[in-house]
């Protein structure tokens, strides 16, 4: 059993419990940790939880602490947030199969710990921008489920009024998904430049995939971010496949956290929400102290196919899929919480039930939303900032054209 040096300071809760944990963990191939020393009665009293030694691999960077200070409330919230995203994605999956969602629909099932861990480590003033697998981040940045599902359904009350769809959702301090692989990386450096320019003291967090990591402009952004000491954490969400191409078939070097070369990096177990939370907190402090950018790699796995039209089995084996499904970020956290006695199995079930009801209700609400009115006024609105629109608008024919 591997225990981090820091974790050794914490006594296991009991021999029986840690044996159970170890067995389960070994079955899953999941990093093993002992439990916290003492768990307070109060839901809001902070206590410390150790992290597994496998949580991090560093590159020219001191590792984050191998423990995280948290509360029972936060742990429950982490769990709930991850289930919400999972249920929301499954809801989207269902709606897509019912042919109610058209076009793109890229699900993040299996990757929930990344979105949730990051949001719990940053402030609402920090900025976040991601790539096209964006539903979970949109929810964590304050988008409601009904507005996200409503957007997927192309509704007027969707988060982008039915104009954006799956890849294009925005909210406060959240600069959306982006449909162009790699293009969001310079954008994020620019957002960081604006933060530096305005002296906000905040940090920009960005996510891109392992596929995007090979785009040239990613490295252009790295160069300028380091040159100008921009407050940004570049983050490669390595789910092992860029569409159907495995990282090993696409990248000459798959240690994405070392890809910054002259930028310190950190590889994080992206299936452990507590590791993600700790790493991002640590990175945020590092960047805020004026140390310049970081390159993070969240090692995760995409349970679903690339998009809805991809069953996700042509290029990866069922055995691999089965094995990684056992390393589910939701189960990982739930088992720890149960093992540590923070929640009981029944409480976990109750949370799941409540979330399922909540998400279903939101989905039902979204289904009731009207489609945008099929009028030229709605079609042409928001191409330009209101008040600055050209007086002309060019439709398909002269009859639909204002000049």
């Amino acid at each position, binding site marked *: 059993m591997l225990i981090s040096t820091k974790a050794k300071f914490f006594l296991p809760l009991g021999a029986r419990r840690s044996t159970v944990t170890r067995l389960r963990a070994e079955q899953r191939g999941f990093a093993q940790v002992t439990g916290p020393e003492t768990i307070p009665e109060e839901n809001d009293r902070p206590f410390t939880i150790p992290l597994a030694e496998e949580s991090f691999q560093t590159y020219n960077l001191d590792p984050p602490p191998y423990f995280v200070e948290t509360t029972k409330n936060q742990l429950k919230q982490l769990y709930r947030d991850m289930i919400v995203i999972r249920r929301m994605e499954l809801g989207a999956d269902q709606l897509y199969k019912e042919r109610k969602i058209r076009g793109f629909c890229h699900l993040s099932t299996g990757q929930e710990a990344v979105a949730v861990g990051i949001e719990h480590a940053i402030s609402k003033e920090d900025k976040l921008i991601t790539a096209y697998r964006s539903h979970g981040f949109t929810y964590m940045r304050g988008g409601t489920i009904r507005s996200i599902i409503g957007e997927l359904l192309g509704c007027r009350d969707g988060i982008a009024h039915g104009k954006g769809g799956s890849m294009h959702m925005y909210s406060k301090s959240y600069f959306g998904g982006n449909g162009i692989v790699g293009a969001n990386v310079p954008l994020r*450096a620019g957002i960081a430049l604006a933060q530096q320019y305005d002296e906000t003291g905040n940090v920009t967090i960005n996510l891109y995939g392992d596929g995007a990591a090979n785009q040239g402009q990613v490295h252009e952004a790295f160069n300028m971010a380091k040159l100008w000491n921009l407050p940004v954490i570049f983050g490669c969400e390595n789910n092992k496949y860029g569409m159907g191409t495995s990282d090993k078939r696409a990248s000459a070097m798959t240690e994405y956290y070392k890809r910054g070369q002259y930028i310190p990096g950190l590889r994080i177990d992206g299936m452990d929400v507590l590791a993600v939370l700790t790493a991002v907190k640590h990175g945020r402090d590092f960047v805020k102290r004026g140390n310049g950018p970081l390159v993070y790699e969240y090692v995760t796995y995409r349970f679903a196919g690339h998009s809805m039209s991809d069953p996700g089995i042509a290029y990866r084996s069922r055995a691999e899929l089965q094995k990684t499904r056992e390393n589910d970020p939701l189960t990982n956290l739930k088992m720890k919480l149960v093992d540590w006695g923070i929640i009981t199995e029944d409480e976990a079930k109750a949370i799941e039930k409540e979330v399922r009801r909540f998400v279903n209700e939101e989905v039902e609400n979204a289904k009731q939303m009207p489609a945008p009115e099929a009028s030229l006024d709605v079609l042409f609105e928001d191409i330009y900032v209101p008040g600055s629109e050209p007086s002309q608008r060019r439709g398909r024919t002269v009859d639909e054209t204002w000049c």
Partner: protein
Amino acid sequence: MAAPRLFRPTARLFSSRLASTALRSNLRQSACAPSILRRGYATEDGTKQVTVRDALNEALAEELELNQKTFILGEEVAQYNGAYKVTKGLLDRFGPKRVIDTPITEAGFCGIAVGAALAGLHPIAEFMTFNFAMQAIDQIINSAAKTHYMSGGIQPCNITFRGPNGFASGVAAQHSQDYSAWYGSIPGLKVVSPWSSEDAKGLLKAAIRDPNPVVVLENELMYGQAFPMSEAAQKNDFVLPIGKAKIERPGKDLTIVSVSRCVGQSLTAAAELKQKYGVDAEVINLRSIKPLDVETIIASLKKTGRIMVVESGYPMFGLSSEILALSMEYGFDYLTAPAVRVTGAEVPTPYAAGLEAMAFPQEDTIVSQAAKLLRL
């Protein structure tokens, strides 16, 4: 969006020649001396001669002064004082925070500028030439132009892209292409292209102030040319409206629509047409490519009955193709001759001078085509 419909499809119009007669007399009354003739007569009524380069520099300095959210970034804009010296002196005046040298990395710095705009700043991204912006065109179109719409109106992007565009002398194919049609076709962008110093200052300031992404297509060969600048244009509140063309030379026999450097060539050609044939050509300086001032073009077409477009882009699917199509859609009944165009040739710009001259509109090309159109 509910703008009044100024033009109706020709087919649905009464053939109202009366209206065009009234318009003609109106314009005659307000006829002013064409600016080509004003050149060299600068000092009366407070005008002064200013080069396009200095006008652009003045516009940048004034806007940097007025708005703390504005900054300029690009290759060699700061310490080198600009590859074409347009940003001369700005680093000394505003410091390295506001005037930022970037590495040679167009996609990267353009993306950074767009990101800063999304986060609320008002960047001005200079491309050493728009030929290099092809490396970054994805950021201009997919990230800057489309985001406001895609976000349902919650994410604006106030950014200005500027730099020399189009024909330049002796630099061959990779450094001498006109991108008006490329950017002019993209919803969400506004595109302006100045000819004179007043254009340059007024349009660049308007572009920086506009809350949308605006592409300013300058021309390298115009930078050193001096034009008279009125007293009003010398002030720091001088702004030209985006989307309004300027009639540089009023006329009654033929409408010549042009943009950027070709406006000067068209004015020279118009003077020659007058001298040789006694023909009065009206020359319209578009100033704005998107939105296009369809109103001014069609009003002029209705007055003269003949239209010719002069521009240096490629002939296929270009600015002139668009204006010719518009003149048919909105002015067909008023045309007394087929609309014609003078454009760049469909060829990668050659290096040798004699061949290069054949690849772009020349003054005699304009004169001869106009004479042919007018059956002179």
